[in-house]
């Protein structure tokens, strides 16, 4: 047909107002709207070669990661999301560094997509992750069909076409009929090189060459010889095209600045606000030239791609890419018959269109409709070289992307249309999945029933259904459906399908309860399926991690019963996890019911500890339990606390550490009680404290370690005494002694001695319960000394102890006659013992000089310090001194270590002083008047010493006498 061409300029613009054809006005408001595309930072990228443990950002308290981190698992050959079941609101978690951490596996669960638009950058990475492994070592065919148009209007450029250059460089130059073979990696590298070359050309102002490269790239996209490689090729080539587009755009900006005399400067910031009507004509013309050049490319595909690459420059020619243009382009794509090419071009158009005007949907609808036809074709006819599955998987990125663009902020009509389209075409899971995922969640939520029906009817394969349900769940999470009916439908449906993927965490706890309830029903009816339990496990973990009110969660009746359905190991792990989590996040335990539940769980844990458990495990669990116990805090209601502790004791009988904690807590309760009543107990409080002490008393013997027992006995005794409970204190100390008695270990003699000294120190306050014999405890100690073998250093130790006893005794201020008598008896006995020791040692004098010396000195010292001087004492002391001296010299003669004389000297000094004082007193005594005073002043000492003297003289039994005689004899001879 013939065309009449005319040139229209002034006339056209002027007359236009009379024509029915209207000039479209620019929509400035719309242009000024900024659309923020979310970029996601990627820590691991196949192209970066990062390993699987690459990069973890600092983790939160529970290994929580930044939400925006993608975790790519390169070993999976399917899309990321089909991995684990459950999804909650929790952020993504990466593997903890500690491989031994039993909870490591909880940390690799997916993050769920937000309702935001996922940028192309992010998508690219995912696509590459999927397809790259498939083509890793494959060879790519580059089609050989060059048409005459390859350089036609553009042949004026220099150099060979890229194709030739590529061929030249290919490592495997096997030529087949269809084209040259080149490895995938090489191809990728070549393309990257091309990208760089283009930049270089541009810098050299060789725009023609750049254009040529761009066109070449676009033409490469026409080639589907190796379908598997197509997605990657698409990404690489569109990158180059994007580069080209941005280079041109940059040039336009530069030119604008130049030609407007520097007045109009376009930067990224003001890109959308600039008034493009003011662009100088020159710039417009140049821009138009670019478009004209791209419009005269013969082939459809490159032409479309080029126009799309340059689309950002449309604003310079005063034509915003109108609905008309996008629609036109979307229709032009129909001219591409090859399904893969066509759909990927659709994807490119969608991307470009979205970046210009995200709200236009019509062109997208065109494309979706069109794409469907291709998909159907592909499904029906498949591909000669690939399996159906594989072939279709190549389309999935385009489906995903297209639907995202369509669905983003779509309105209801769009949704209906798309859904109808979906209904009317062969069904594939990915369509529905994309629909569910990308359309606004409210729309999906309102159509829950329909969608569920669709899932049920259209898909049979487990995988499909599961992934769809998961998608559904995620969407519902973002906007829960209003009608409970649909929720229930969903749950029911989900349950029917063994899928436990829906969890509505915030809005309704009822929801969770129902699920648990349902699960119980379910679990009863089927045999345990490990995989299933795994998922439920994750579910619980997630619930725990995100539950706002953890305590409420624990309180669910069903939860505990639920736990029982798990296999033991899992159950234990879960319990521990729960407790740990609880411990970390809860300040106080106050609610009785909650405590009960916690204890139930803890008991489960506790029960699993047996002889097979590792130390580390025991420690861990003990720690957790201890923490829990410490959290129990009823404020001032001590009674309640005690009751709880009692319960706890019964539950956690096996773990010593826990028991210890309990004891500590109880004892501290008693101490606290004392504090609160400020020392003045009422009947009620005293009985409470008694109860505490009693508790402790009973509990301590259950501890395994003797040392601990002793320790705790002491502690309890001290607190008991603080509260004025003499009887209890007494029995506690008896307990100590009996413990020591029973578990006497020669190796720990020093320790025991220390303990005893400790006790003795304590006994200074109140030696014993007045109701029984005064020094019962001391006597107990003494018998201890007698009855056991104390090993080589026994004598020293014994002596020390004896001396301590003497100290105690001598400190006893309060006392009546009986008391004093007993005290004296004790003292005598002690002294005898000392002498005995000396005797024994004397036999083996040689080796024991230091010890002997020590004994003597200690004895002397004590006497000097604590006793009033009397004749007997005097002589005894002197004797001691002499003996000490003797030993000293002997020792210094024989062995290397010299014993110092200082001690002797000091003691002697003291002794002398005392003697003087005593002498002075004696004198005063005779003066009479102050005698009584003085006597009263020093009654205990004097009376004691006097009494001591007397018994010494009177009660010197034969043994003693003999001993003394022996002593004297030996001293003479030495």
């Amino acid at each position: 047909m013939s065309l009449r061409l005319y040139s229209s300029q002034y006339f056209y613009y002027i007359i236009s107002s009379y024509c029915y054809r209207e000039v479209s006005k620019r929509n400035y408001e719309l242009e000024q709207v900024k659309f923020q595309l979310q970029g996601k930072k990627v820590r691991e990228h196949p192209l970066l070669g990062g390993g699987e443990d690459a990069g973890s950002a600092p983790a939160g308290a529970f290994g929580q990661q930044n939400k925006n981190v993608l975790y790519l698992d390169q070993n999976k050959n399917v899309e990321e999301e089909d991995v684990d079941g459950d999804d909650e609101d929790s952020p993504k978690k990466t593997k903890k560094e500690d491989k031994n951490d039993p909870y490591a596996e909880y940390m690799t669960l997916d993050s769920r997509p937000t309702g935001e638009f996922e940028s192309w950058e992010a998508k690219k990475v995912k696509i590459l992750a999927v397809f790259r492994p498939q083509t890793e070592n494959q060879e790519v065919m580059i089609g050989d069909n060059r048409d005459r148009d390859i350089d036609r209007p553009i042949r004026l450029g220099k150099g060979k076409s890229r194709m030739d250059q590529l061929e030249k460089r290919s490592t495997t130059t096997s030529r087949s009929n269809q084209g040259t073979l080149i490895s995938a990696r090489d191809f990728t590298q070549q393309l990257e090189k091309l990208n760089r070359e283009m930049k270089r050309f541009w810098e050299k102002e060789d725009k023609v060459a750049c254009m040529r490269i761009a066109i070449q790239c676009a033409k490469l996209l026409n080639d589907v010889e190796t379908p598997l490689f197509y997605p990657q090729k698409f990404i690489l080539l569109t990158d180059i095209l994007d580069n080209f587009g941005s280079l041109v755009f940059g040039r336009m900006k530069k030119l604008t600045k130049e030609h407007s005399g520097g007045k109009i400067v376009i930067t990224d910031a003001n890109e959308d606000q600039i008034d493009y009507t003011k662009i100088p004509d020159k710039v417009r013309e140049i821009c138009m030239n670019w478009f004209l050049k791209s419009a005269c490319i013969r082939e459809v595909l490159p032409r479309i791609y080029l126009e799309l690459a340059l689309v950002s420059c449309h604003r310079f020619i005063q034509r915003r890419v109108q609905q008309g243009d996008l629609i036109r382009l979307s229709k032009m794509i129909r001219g591409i018959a090859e399904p893969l090419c066509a759909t990927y071009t659709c994807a490119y158009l969608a991307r470009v269109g979205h970046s210009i005007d995200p709200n236009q949907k019509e062109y997208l609808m065109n494309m979706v409709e069109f794409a469907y036809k291709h998909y159907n074709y592909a499904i029906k006819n498949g591909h000669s070289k690939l399996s159906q599955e594989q072939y279709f998987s190549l389309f999935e990125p385009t489906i995903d992307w297209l639907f995202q663009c369509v669905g983003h902020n779509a309105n209801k009509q769009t949704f209906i249309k798309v859904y109808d389209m979906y209904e009317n075409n062969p069904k594939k899971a990915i369509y529905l999945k994309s629909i569910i995922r990308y359309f606004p969640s409210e729309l999906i939520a309102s159509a829950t029933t329909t969608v569920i029906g669709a899932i049920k009817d259209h898909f049979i394969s487990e995988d499909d259904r599961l992934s769809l349900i998961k998608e559904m769940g995620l969407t519902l999470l973002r906007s829960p459906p209003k009608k409970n009916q649909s929720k229930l439908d969903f749950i029911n449906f989900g349950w029917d399908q063994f899928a436990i993927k829906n969890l509505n965490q915030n809005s309704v706890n009822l929801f969770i309860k129902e699920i648990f309830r349902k699960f119980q029903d379910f679990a009863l009816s089927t045999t345990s399926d490990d995989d299933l339990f795994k998922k439920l496990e994750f579910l619980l973990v997630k619930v725990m991690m995100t539950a706002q009110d953890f305590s409420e969660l624990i309180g669910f009746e069903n939860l505990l019963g639920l736990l029982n359905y798990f296999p033991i190991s899992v159950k234990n792990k879960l319990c521990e996890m729960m407790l740990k989590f609880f411990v970390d996040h809860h300040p106080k335990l106050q609610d009785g019911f909650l405590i009960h539940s916690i204890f139930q769980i803890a008991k489960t844990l506790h029960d699993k500890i047996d002889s097979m458990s590792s130390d580390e495990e025991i420690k861990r669990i003990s720690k957790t339990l201890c923490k829990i116990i410490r959290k129990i805090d009823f404020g001032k209601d001590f009674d309640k606390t005690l009751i709880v502790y009692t319960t706890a004791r019964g539950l956690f009988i096996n773990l010593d550490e826990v028991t210890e904690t309990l004891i500590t807590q109880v004892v501290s309760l008693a101490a606290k009680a004392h504090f609160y009543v400020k020392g003045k107990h009422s009947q009620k409080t005293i009985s409470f404290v008694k109860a505490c002490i009693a508790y402790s008393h009973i509990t301590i013997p259950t501890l395994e370690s003797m040392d601990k027992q002793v320790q705790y006995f002491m502690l309890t005794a001290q607190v008991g005494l603080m509260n004025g409970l003499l009887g209890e204190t007494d029995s506690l100390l008896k307990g100590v002694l009996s413990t020591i008695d029973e578990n006497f270990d020669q190796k720990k003699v020093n320790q025991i001695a220390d303990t005893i000294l400790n006790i003795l120190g304590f006994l200074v306050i109140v030696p014993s319960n007045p109701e029984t014999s005064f020094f019962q405890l001391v006597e107990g100690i003494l018998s201890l000394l007698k009855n056991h073998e104390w090993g080589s250093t026994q004598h020293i130790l014994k002596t020390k102890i004896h001396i301590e006893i003497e100290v105690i005794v001598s400190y006893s201020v309060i006392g009546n006659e009986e008391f004093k008598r007993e005290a004296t008896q004790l003292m005598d006995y002690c002294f005898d013992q000392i002498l005995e020791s000396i005797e024994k040692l004397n036999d083996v004098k040689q080796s024991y000089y230091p010890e002997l010396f020590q004994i003597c000195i200690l004895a002397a010292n004590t006497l000097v310090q604590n006793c009033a001087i009397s004749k007997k004492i005097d002589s005894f002391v002197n004797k001691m001194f002499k003996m000490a001296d003797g030993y000293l010299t002997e020792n210094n003669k024989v062995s290397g270590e010299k014993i110092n004389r200082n001690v002797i000297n000091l003691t002697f000094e003291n002794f002398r002083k005392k003697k003087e004082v005593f002498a002075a007193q004696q004198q005063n005594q005779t003066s009479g008047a102050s005698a009584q005073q003085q006597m009263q002043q020093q009654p205990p000492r004097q009376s004691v010493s006097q009494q001591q003297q007397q018994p010494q003289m009177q009660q010197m039994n034969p043994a003693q006498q003999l001993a003394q005689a022996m002593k004297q004899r030996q001293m003479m001879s030495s």
Partner: protein
Amino acid sequence: MSLEIKLDRASKFYEPGVIIDISKIMLQEKVTGYITIIDSQSQIQHSGIVVNAEGYMDTVSIIRGNIGRPPMKDEDRIYFMKKKFTLSDGGKLNTSTPIPFEFILEANEKGESLIDAYVGYEVQITLNKGGKTLKGNEKFYCAVPGAGIDTTIGRRDMPKEFAISPDNLEASTLKSVPKFKFEGQIYSVNCAFQEPFDGYIITRDSEYVIKSIEVQLVRVETFEGKTFATEVQNIQVADGDVIRDMEIPLYMLFPKIYSCPTVIHAKFSVINLIHQRLTLD
């Protein structure tokens, strides 16, 4: 020594004045530029600079090269504009300073009006120095507003529907004609040059696999009774066996230089044709 002409407008597109009002006020379009003389000496003597601006129709096409006819002789040319004026009578001039010149772009030949050029109008400047002449050439383009408008049609759209099927074929070289059916519409066969050519085509049916559908822009020149048709550009619209019953746009932009509006002149004419090419496998 050489002479250079530089036009002020980088694109070298000028539009001659146009009558915009009934009172016949013309907006003159001036072609302005500079002459620069390049010489080793800083000053030269000359005896005159003459500017010669011409617009004419020629049968030589740069693209064709030697295939086409040789250029016509001066007297045979059809001139639209012929201007000659003296810029300077003589004297000294500095080689560094450019000398401005200008002239109005208009048709000054009787009965002629300027037409759009896709080869170009020419401005030729001659400098006489002593006995020698220095010449410089510069081409520029003229885009005449409203050129090619058929006064009967004006700027109206003239949509045209078409159908392509075996019945419509004028001649078939194949013995057995395959069955096919295409339908379409051109939005307007009266197109503005700066506007795209638009329409669509729908494949209804085709027995054979479609290999490609193309839109071809052809320029037919008639001169001295002979007709030459040249393909200006060929745009592929569909590649491969496209899906049936889908509207595929026919969209094309007219190239700036290789095509021009329709010109009907007494002695020659240039018309444009669109061909639809369907290649079946």
